[in-house]
Structure formats: C-alpha cells, structure tokens
C-alpha cells in the first residue's frame, strides 16, 4: 500500500483536551481541504475545485423521507423528557446552564401515584397500632388508636394542591402528626433511590448510547435491485424482521411479501451485517446478549451462536477479513474476539478508560486493516490492540486531547473502521471517530494525528455512520453521519492512495423524518401531536442501498425510528453541468451590501411532494391513528378504608358523575353535562355563555369529541346555502379567525376513521397490519437456543412509559367522591399535564 506522499500541515501538541493555546489549523471550513497545497507550482494545477465541489450534491427526490412499511401496530410513547426531570422554577438565562433535577416534585408525584408502594409497608408495620373498625377504642392497650376517630379529628384540614384531596384532606393532619415517624424513613430511602434513577434517566436523555452503531442493516440480494432490510420491530423492539425490498431504478421501493420474523427475548440494540468471501453473517446485540446468524443462499438466517454478556454488551462488530469472526465488548471493559467455532478469546481487559479517567463504561471494538489487530475504544480514546501480542499493550490511535485539538468536554461517541472492498476507493486503513462536536478520520499508519477533521455540529449525538463505495470509479465516497435526533449529514470524502483523505465538497444535510410532516394532511391537535411525536422519534438505525446504475447514480437511505417505523429517501447525484460557477463579473459585492430586492433565486428547484407521496403518507397515517394509545402501566391507588367507615359512604349522584368522568377520560372524549344526565342548576358554568351562533366554540367542541369532519361537512353545506350578508354581521375578529379555519377546511383531508367507531376498526386493522409470520421464521425462532437466553424484562415493564390515564376498571373501585359543588376549592387547581387534558 502506498502512503499519502504529502500530508496537510498540522501542529502536533501533546496535552489535555481544551488547551486553548493550541491553534486549530483545521479552520473549521469545508474548503480548507480543497486547498491542500499542490506540490508543483500551482500555475499548472489551478484546479477548478469550487466547480467540482459544488457539483457534488446528492439531491433528495422528496422534501422528506417517506414511510416504507405500515406503522408498527404497537403503541409508542416518547418517554420522559427534560420537563419531567428538571427543576422548572427559577431557571435563568445564564451563559452556562444550570441543571437541577426536580427530585421533590418527582417524589411527591411518586407518593401520590404509588402511595400503596410507598406507604403500604409502613402501614403493615403499624397495623397493630390502629383500629380501623368500631366506634370506641375498647382495647386496653395504649398503643392502639382508632383510625376512625383520628380521621374524624383530622376532617376539615385542607391540604394544598393534592389531586386526591377529597381522599386525603383528613389524612393530611394525620400525616402531620405521624410525619416525624413516617416521613423520614420513606423520604430518605425513596429520595435516594429516586435521585439515582432520575440522574440515570437524565444522562440517558442526554446520551442514549444503547443504539450506538444502529439497529438497521441492508443485506444485498442476488441482484442489485433486490435486498433485505433487517430491523427490530414490535413495541419492545424484540422481534428481528427480515423484509425483502426491491428498488426499481425509477420508482419507489416495493416491499415484497411479508417479513420473516425471529422473536428474541430482549430489545435489539445493534444489527450488523458483513459479507466476507461470499458468506453473509448477521450479528445482533441486545442489552445482555449477542447473537450471530448465517444468512444462507435462500436468504434464510440460521442461528450460529448466542452469547450471554453478564455485565452488558456495548458493541459488536463483524470482521471484514475472516468469515465468522466477531469482536464483542462489554461494560466490564473486556474486549473479546468471538468465533462461533472456537468460542471467545479475551483480547483486552481494562476497567479503566484509556487516556484519562471517565466514569462511562461504554466500550467499543472494531477491526483494522490487519486481521489480527483490533481497535478498542472508549469515551477518551481509541487504541489498537494486537490480539496475538502480549495482553494490554497497544498503540493509541486517537486520543481525546490536544493532538486532535479536542475541545474541553469532548468525548468519543462512535468509532468505526471504514472497511473497503474496492481498490479504487479510500485506503483500507482509515478509521472514523465521532465526538459530540467533530468527525475525525484517522489513518492507522499515522496514529494520533487526524487526517481530516470536520466540525459536524449535529444537534444530537452522532451514533450512526455509514460509508458507501464511490458512485463512479475515482469519485468521492459518500459518508452518512446520522444523529440520534434524526439529522443526517452527508460528507463527500475523497483521497485515493497517493493523496490524503479530504472533503471533496461542502457537506450537506439531508431531510429528517420530522421534515415529512408537511406531507401529511392536517389533523386535530391531539392526532397531530401523536403524528409529530411519532415522526420525531429518535433515529436508531441507518442503512443505505446503492444499486449500481449506469445512468444516474442513486442511493436509497433507510432510517429506523425508535417507534419501529422505517423511512426511506432516494438521493440522486446531480449532474455537474447544472450548477457551474458563473463566469460573469459579480454584481453582488458581498454580504455587506444591501440585500437585493429581488426574491432569492436558487439555481435548484426545491423538491416537492408528489401525489403518490402524499397518498402514501395518508395511508400510513390512517393506520397510525388506529394504533391504540399506550396502555397505562399505572393505576390510581385505592384506599379501601372508606368502605370500613360506614358513615362516609358517598351519595349516589356523585358516584355517577365520577364514573362518567372516568369513562370520558379513558376514552379521551369530552365530558359534557348532558352525558351526566342532571345539571346542578344552582351552579352556572363560570365561562361566558356562548351564543347560539358561536361557530368556533361549536366547532371546537365537535372536534374535541372527534366529530370535526362531520361538522365541517355540515357547515360547508350550510354556508353554501346561507347568504353572505348574514355572516358579515358577526364580530370582525371571530370572522377572521373562522375564515382562516374555513380556508383550512378545504385542505382538510381527514381520514374517515376519525369519526367512525373505534373498536371495530381497530380489530380489523390490527389483523391486517400484524405481519403474518412466515413458516421459516417460526422454525428459526424455535431454533433459537432457549437455554442460552434468559428472560429479559421488556421495556414495557420498566417504568419508561408514562402514566397516561386512569383505567375505568380502577376508577370504579374508588367509590367516594366529594361533591364538586360543596367543596369547589378541593378540586385540583393544578392541571396534571400527564392526565391528558
């Protein structure tokens, strides 16, 4: 192999990261590499780099990615947000943010939501000291108290802000009395555990490293137009699916048949494939397991081996050199070479991090150009380790420090060996290192000095990367860099053997699935939010297919979201002639001059949605809206002592109101007074009485009840009949507002289902959407060695899901409810945002 004959100049300084005294020569501009100094006098090589650079553009054919498969029939919940975790009060805009975990609020919520868990043990302990039944305390023991009396004594004390105030207003004083005893033990223990949990969640929110590497892979098929997508499906991401997809050169990708599935017992975190010497292997990493399959000629996967990783696996990679060789790393700091025939060989073990001390237990391993040398990475650096050499020794390939002019707080997020099969491409010695700020290309022949540095500026952790072969022999190779937040950047990297790798043009950003929102019809706020959340779900997998096509090179990019949806987009390489640099003298003297009054005329037309695309989105949306909301995992605590206290039985009317309310909440419907039957005449509603012709309120009301479309249709009919003069009489503002709305109605294209009864539709759609399991996959599912797998808790069981609503079944067990009229102040003043109002 040849080494680049002349490397771009760079300073080399050793030291910790963030030493501000080191001038960063990478200049943070994309064209710096285009200016790599020519060795011969530049007169004869006055290359038209700007031209060739601008010509490099992979233009997406649509403004955003489109869904490839029907939405996953399992409900998806975005999980906790910063709002749930952080202290909201008193946050000031300071230069440096201050993060305070809101343990107090979470603790109080926990005590309200899970009072049974929090207090039951204490209650049980103190059971013998309380007497729940009977009037007077006949016991001789002085330590036994009558609960009834106590509660009566406590009556009338008004707690503040408690949603179950109607239950606890008596208990409140009891809690004051018992506070010194009860409060400490519960709050101490719980507080500590909760703080720990919140800190973990917050860290996870900032950086969810589980999906490093990505859980989506493309297996090329026998012809270049057909291949298989391998991805996890299901709400728990525990079903590994193999979906055959054909990529016609002109049109949209077509899904061929139903996916084959393998049911696993844990969530899939990473999927890697590699074809070495004609043998295709597929490796999967779960939290505590790794498995490897061999994909046969008929594209049928056969399990080779399953590995249990006690401390948790953080990375898996397949060898690009030797078939059936893998590198696995675990949180314990061990890196093993794994071959299904010979088992595990520990290559490296160090619980400490490489360069400086960092608490993260994340480890990564990949291969190098030498089949016996592995890279071992952690947050602080990357090391090359010879598997045959003495243990523990090796050469640092990348160090988070002054050598690469790293910033303070910069850490390695991903390292990847850029394997090359084509001799016409980049040298096979390059490694990609991604941090929160920058991307580095490091050559293993010149460790510590990055060959290329690019400040990617992604607003989410860059955990996914994918290098493609060149579109034409000798042209730059596209490198996709994907952030967890869905942003994808495309870099053009060039540098065949005698020259150093460099950027061949300005990097470009590709649309993310959140950009596709405009392709969907407008919805009611609730459904719109559901759709938006779904589209903004983190991207956990990136794969691309590159069918060699003679005329226009095209790349298919697939993105897997955490909700289990796969989006695709097609990128075509733009013809170089379409945007050549203008040769005419410039009329615009730069940004300091006043902006031209003419609207900006960009040379390229913006891609727009085709009718096919919007139809595809509408179909997908229709299926999505039929996905039931996430099932609540939490139930309101029940206090059954009230049943024991006969005198406090509630009146029947109130029970009915409560039941109605609960039912409406469970159904997500508007509770109207007529639903409850009787109206308390003594209490007029505080809101101003809407006039009979108030269309807006009427419409909102209808929309809230899910009848928006019907109302629109009715109204459109009415408007067409009614005279325009009547409408003009209405107040100006309102008419303006409604006219905006009515202008919206023309483009409102709601699916019919939103107004149709839910239950029937849902069952049929579920049956339709559930991918039938093909016979072979059942076999392979059976082949999975059960003894190697241990039961893993599904994410559903873990308290990731948010508490959404009270199920009606639980609601019915709460029998007491004070009248709203009699104690208006006791109604919770604060709205609980999670309840769904």
């Amino acid at each position, binding site marked *: 192999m040849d080494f680049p004959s002349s490397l771009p100049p760079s300073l080399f300084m050793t030291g910790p990261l963030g030493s501000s005294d080191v001038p960063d020569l990478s200049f943070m501009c994309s064209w710096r590499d285009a200016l790599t100094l020519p060795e011969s006098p530049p007169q004869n090589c006055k290359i038209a780099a700007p031209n060739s650079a601008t010509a490099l553009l992979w233009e997406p054919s649509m403004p955003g990615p489109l869904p490839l498969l029907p939405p996953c029939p399992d409900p998806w919940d975005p999980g906790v947000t910063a709002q749930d975790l952080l202290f909201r009060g008193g946050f000031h805009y300071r230069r440096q943010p201050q993060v305070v975990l809101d343990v107090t609020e979470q603790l109080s919520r926990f005590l309200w939501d899970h009072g049974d868990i929090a207090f039951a043990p204490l209650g049980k302990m103190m059971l013998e000291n309380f007497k729940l039944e009977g009037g007077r305390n006949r016991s001789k023991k002085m330590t036994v108290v009558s609960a009834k009396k106590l509660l009566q004594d406590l009556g009338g004390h008004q707690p503040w802000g408690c949603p179950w105030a109607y239950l606890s207003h008596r208990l409140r004083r009891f809690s004051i009395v018992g506070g010194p005893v009860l409060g400490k033990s519960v709050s101490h223990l719980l507080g500590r555990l909760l703080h720990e949990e919140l800190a973990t969640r917050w860290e996870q929110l900032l950086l969810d490293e589980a999906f490093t590497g990505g859980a989506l892979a493309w297996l090329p098929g026998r012809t270049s137009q057909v291949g298989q997508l391998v991805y996890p499906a299901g709400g728990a991401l525990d079903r590994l699916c193999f979906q055959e997809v054909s990529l016609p050169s002109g049109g949209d990708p077509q899904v061929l048949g139903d996916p084959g599935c393998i049911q696993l017992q844990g969530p899939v975190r990473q999927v890697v494939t590699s074809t070495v010497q004609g043998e295709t292997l597929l490796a999967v990493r779960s939290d505590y397991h790794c498995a490897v399959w061999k994909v046969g000629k008929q594209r049928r996967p056969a399990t080779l081996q399953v590995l249990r990783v006690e401390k948790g696996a953080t990375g898996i990679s397949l060898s690009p050199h030797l078939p059936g060789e893998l590198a696995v790393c675990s949180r314990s700091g061990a890196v093993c070479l794994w071959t299904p025939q010979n088992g595990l060989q520990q290559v490296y073990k160090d619980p400490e991090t490489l360069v400086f001390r960092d608490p993260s237990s994340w480890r990564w391993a990949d291969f190098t150009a030498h089949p016996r040398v592995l890279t071992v990475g952690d947050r602080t650096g990357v090391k090359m380790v010879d598997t*045959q050499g003495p243990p523990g020794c090796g050469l640092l390939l990348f160090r988070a420090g002054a050598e690469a002019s790293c910033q303070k*707080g910069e850490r390695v997020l991903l390292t990847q060996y850029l394997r090359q099969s084509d001799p016409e491409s980049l040298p096979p010695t390059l490694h990609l290192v991604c941090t929160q700020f920058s991307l580095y290309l490091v050559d293993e022949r010149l460790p510590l000095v990055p060959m290329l540095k690019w400040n990617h500026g992604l607003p989410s952790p860059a955990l996914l990367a994918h290098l493609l072969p060149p579109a034409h022999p000798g042209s730059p190779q596209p490198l996709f860099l994907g952030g967890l937040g869905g942003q994808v950047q495309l870099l053009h990297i060039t540098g065949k053997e005698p020259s150093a790798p460099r950027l061949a043009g*300005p990097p470009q950003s590709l649309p993310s699935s959140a950009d596709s929102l405009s392709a969907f019809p407008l919805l009611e706020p609730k459904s719109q939010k559901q759709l938006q959340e779904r589209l903004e779900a983190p991207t956990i997998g990136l794969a691309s297919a590159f069918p060699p096509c003679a005329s226009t090179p095209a790349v298919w990019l697939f993105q897997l979201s955490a909700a289990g949806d796969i989006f695709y987009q097609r990128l075509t390489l733009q013809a170089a002639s379409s945007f050549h640099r203008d040769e005419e003298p410039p009329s615009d003297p730069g940004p300091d001059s006043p*902006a031209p009054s003419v609207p900006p005329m960009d040379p390229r037309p913006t891609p727009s949605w085709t009718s096919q695309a919007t139809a595809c989105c509408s179909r997908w949306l229709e299926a999505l809206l039929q996905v039931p909301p996430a099932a609540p995992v939490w139930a309101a605590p029940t206090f059954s002592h009230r049943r024991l206290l006969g005198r406090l039985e509630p009146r029947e009317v109130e029970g009915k109101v409560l039941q109605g309310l609960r039912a409406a909440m469970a159904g997500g419907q508007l509770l109207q007074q007529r639903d409850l039957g009787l109206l308390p005449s003594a209490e007029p509603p505080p809101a101003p009485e809407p006039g009979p012709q108030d269309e807006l309120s009427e419409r909102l009301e209808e929309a809230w009840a899910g009848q928006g479309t019907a109302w629109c249709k009715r109204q459109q009919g009415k408007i067409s009949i009614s005279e325009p003069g009547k409408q003009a009489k209405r107040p100006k503002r309102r008419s303006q507002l409604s006219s905006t709305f009515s202008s919206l109605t023309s483009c409102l294209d709601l699916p019919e289902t939103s107004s149709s009864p839910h239950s029937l539709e849902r069952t049929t759609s579920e049956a339709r959407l559930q991918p039938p399991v093909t016979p072979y996959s059942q076999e392979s599912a059976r082949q999975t060695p059960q003894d190697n797998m241990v039961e893993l808790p599904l994410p559903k069981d873990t308290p990731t899901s948010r508490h959404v609503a009270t199920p009606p079944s639980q609601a019915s067990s709460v029998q007491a409810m004070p009248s709203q009229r009699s104690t208006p102040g006791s109604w919770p003043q604060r709205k609980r945002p999670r309840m769904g109002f």
Partner: protein
Amino acid sequence: MSDFSEELARPGSEDGQVETSVVSGTGMHFPWLWKHLDTVATRGKKKKDFAQTTGACLSLIQEALLKQRWQQAAEYMHSYLQTLEDSDSNKKQMAPEIIWKLGSEILFYHPKSSVKTFSAFADQMKNVGVLNYLKHALYLIHHGMLEDAHRNLSQAETWRYGEKSSSQETLINLVQAYKGLLEYYSWSKKKMELSQCDKDDYAYSTEARNTFRHSWKTSVNFSSLIKTPGVWDPFVKSYVEMLEFHGDRDGARKVLTNYAYDKKFPSNPNAHIYLYSFLKRVRAPRAELLRALQILYQIVPSHKLMLEFHTLLRRSDREEHRKLGLGVLFGLLDFAGCTKNITAWKYLASYLRQILMQNHLGWVQEEWKSRRNWWPTFHFSYFWAKSDWKEDKDLAYEKAFVAGMLLGKGCRYFRYILKQDHQDLWKKIKRMKKSVKKYSIVKPAA
C-alpha cells in the same frame, strides 16, 4: 444546528461549566443540552428578543449552508450582521469570528462571488486573527494569485496582538512557512524555465542565479517552523529540495533526520520515506538505507517500500538480515490492502523456495506459527482460489505455490489451481508441484 456561538464561547468562559456536569459527573459536554433546557425554562428571565432573532438567524444560515443554498445564506448573513450590536460583550467579541467563518464559507461557494468580493470581505475582517490572513492567502493561492497571497502573508508576519504568546509565535512561524512555500513555487518555476533555456546564455543565467540566491535567503522561513512538532510534509519537502539544489547536503540531511527521529514529532511515515529517498539520492551506504527502512517497517509494515526493503535484505550477507527479509514479506501480506499484491506473492514464493533449499526451515516455521490459524482462511480459502483464478491467473499461481509450501499439497487452494487446465501455465504448475513435493514444510504423513 448546534448553537455555534455557545460552542465558540466554551474555551473562553469556563466559569459556570462545572454546573452542567453536576448531574452526570462525567465532565462531558453536550451541545444539545440547551435544547433540553429551553423546553424547561418556563419561568425566570427569558432570552431577549435580540438574542432570539440572532440565534434563529444563525441557525438559518447554517442550515442554508448545509443545504448548499448559497444565495439564501448570503441574504441571511446580511441580517445576521446585527449581532455586532449585541449588548452582551462576550457575544459581541465572538461575533467577528463567526461572521468571518460563515462569510468566507459562503463567499467561497457563492456562484456570484469573486476574488475581489472575497478580498474585500477578508480585508474588513482582518482583526480576527492571523489565521484570517492565512485563510485569505490560501484562497488567493487557490485562485492562482500568488503575488497577492505573498503580500498578504507578509502583512500577517507583522501581526501582533497583546502579549506575545507561544501560540502566536507558532502561527507567525506558520505564516512564514507558507510564505516560504510561495517563494519555493516561484523558485521552482524559474528552475523549470532555466532547465528549458539555453544554458550558454550568460546574462540569463546570472539573472537566474540572482533570483535563486534571493529566494534561497527567504526560504530560511521554513527553518523555524519545522522545529515545532507537527506534520510539515510540504514545507520539509520543498526546503530539502532547495537545500539540495544549493549543494547543502548536510543541511538537508540534518533537517530530514530531525524530522524523522525527533521524539516530539508524531511518527510520520513520510518523514522516514523522505529520509530514505534522500539517502538513496545521495547514494548512502546500504547500512544506512537499511536502518531508515527498518524504522519504516516498524511503523508501516504494509508500505510498498517494504518490497524494496526485502530485496535489500535478501541481498545482504548477514543471516539475520535474510531472516528479516522473510518476516517483511509475511508482514506485508498480513494487511487487507496487500492481499492482491502479485509482486509480494512472487517474492514470497521464490524466497520461500530459496530459504527452504538452504535448509532454513526454522525461519519459516517461526513466521508461520502466528499465522497458521488464520492465513488459510484469510488467503487460501476455496473462495479465493476460485476468484483469484478468475481474476488473475498469475496471482493465483504464486499464491498456490506459497499455499503448497506452507500447507502441503492437501491444501484446497493448491489443489484447486492444480486441477485447472491451463495451457500457458501448465509447465509452471508442473514445476510448482515438484517443488512443493520436495520443499513443503508440511510433510505428508508417511
């Protein structure tokens, strides 16, 4: 887009930094932390409208840049200039640098921008720093305007700001080195013209010599920078070329030796390659050449010069050199990028035969010991036998020879090639069969 200004702010203001890491305790910095915090900030002091609009404008510019919409970016840039009025002194200080970075990026790609526009912009941003001059100069070089670039760099040489720090000195050195490089360009251009001219013309050659001497004087510019640790390939190369031309071989050797062997420098393979080619040019003794290549062998065993190293070692009289010669070949073929290097395979096949004929079985076994468990699948699998034969018959033949020597005649690769009926290679294959039978390190079980 990340908050660019925040990013730039980081190295300077470290006062409140600890607070972000209180929770995680890792010291890791998250550029997306602000995004999370913005959703939480409901109470307290809000960001000012001014800061909001400038922030939004900045992200729009960055988005336009990444979408390669230069026209749009330029228009947003026009609005972004309001950031210079920011009341926040920290941001105000940072603004020129951001404007320079984004502005130069836009003007480099903008279809209507020209060298004049760029220069006008760069001149206004001169107070940003020395790197500004350098970037401007690079832009000018790129557009073939060497004299302007030279003038620019000369200006930059005198740039001073505040206390003279070590980094400032390095930057000035760097500027000087680039200046030296420009002088090297004109020098080598003159040299080329001279070589094409009539050498008898006395007047011309005197003038040329004068220019040479002049540029030679200024090329000392290089010397201060290349003492600073770093990768200075283009500078070292041109410096050495000029030194050599003026007959200062010792000086050139000193520069190259320092560049290759100074411990403070990164282990740059090019430093050793330059030294080796220099030594070769001056016809240095073989021992010196071997020493230079031996170090390169330790750094980059996959380099193509290793084949040259092998031939040097093979011809050596010392036994340890000849033994190393085998190791060099094996080491080269370990690498994924070298598996189809037919010369290496040819050398290995013939050298194996030669060594085994000389009864050095131990050498081969020593090299083979660590490769026995993976070379057969890496090089000599049935798949490779088929594909090598299809793609390159000569390569397949050489590999089959080595496979037979190392794995015996039962090896699949060897058997597959043996089975192929090929007219041209028929004789060679027969000879190979004979050699393998005689010298293979794997003796068939008797």
